[in-house]
């Protein structure tokens, strides 16, 4: 005997919402992650340099950012990462501490390889384009004294908007 077909008493088309919700949640999570709701540090307006390249950091290296920006009073401020404002002498001390903590200090006897004795710490100087360039003399000197010899100057490849008059 042929089995009676079960007929669902449904009217209209029922859409399956699950894939849509999956995608929408994915988008939400993506935008939440990339949104910068708070700017924690002073904005640095980097100079434009067409030759600036975006490089992946070398394995085993650590990059420290030295920011030179203007505070609310319009004074130039040197910061290591997001830290407090510091003088060049304090910066030198902080860089030395970082270099020692990183374990690749030049005189570290634990490094038998002479090449590895040089610090693989890198410093990237993020300096506001309007700041006095005398700052980089001081930062270079501080890096040199901390025996960090890989220094980069951050710049932006191109800029499409006027950073001084944001919309």
């Amino acid at each position, binding site marked *: 005997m042929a089995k009676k077909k079960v007929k669902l008493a449904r009217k209209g088309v029922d859409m399956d919402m699950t894939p849509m919700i999956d995608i929408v*949640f994915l988008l939400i999570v993506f*935008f939440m992650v990339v949104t910068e709701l708070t700017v924690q540090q002073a904005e640095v307006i980097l100079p434009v340099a067409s030759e*600036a390249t975006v490089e992946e950091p070398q394995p085993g290296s650590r990059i420290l950012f030295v920011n030179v920006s203007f505070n609310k009073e319009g004074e130039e401020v040197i910061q290591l990462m997001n830290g407090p404002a510091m003088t060049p002498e304090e910066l030198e001390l902080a860089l030395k501490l970082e270099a020692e903590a990183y374990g690749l200090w030049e005189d570290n006897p634990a490094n038998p390889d002479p090449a590895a004795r040089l610090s693989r710490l890198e410093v990237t100087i993020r300096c506001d384009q*309007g700041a006095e*360039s*005398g700052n980089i003399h001081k930062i270079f000197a501080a890096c040199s004294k901390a025996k960090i010899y890989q220094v*980069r100057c951050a*710049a932006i490849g191109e800029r499409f908007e006027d950073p001084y008059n944001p919309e």
Partner: protein
Amino acid sequence: MAKRKVVDPDANKAEADMTPMIDVVFLLLIFFMLATKFKMPEGTLRSYLPKNRGESNSRPMLSENCRVTLLYQGDQVVAYADQAQVPTSDVLDSDFELHTGVPGPNLDFIEQHILRRRDTYVALGDTATLPVVIDFAEKVPYKYVIDVLNICSKLEIENIAFAQPETPMD
């Protein structure tokens, strides 16, 4: 014989109404889409400091280098490429100059000068490429130093030195 009861599998299922959730989710999505501002990736110009000590200026070879001097006189950057004074640019050609309203030195002039020097450079001793010394006064905006570095980078000059700042003659 009793007829077998057909059980609708959906009959006892609790079904949540998705509409309010989707409303909220779309609202959040639109908020984050509008609030997002993508940042341009930052690039860097690489440089290596001397591993031991800075070189002494007394080396005779340094007379062969190309010296770009940036001075700051009365809120304006005055540049010299070797002995030649770099003319001031006729246009405000960057957001910084538009902001300050002061034109900077003509960067093409500097580029042409370094290019000429590079192409006529005769390798001396251990320096295979033209050494370029960037000599800038302390007050010069950082942008111009990066501009000169950028030109050197464009012209594939590897031997770049920063001089200690020099005070203007007067």
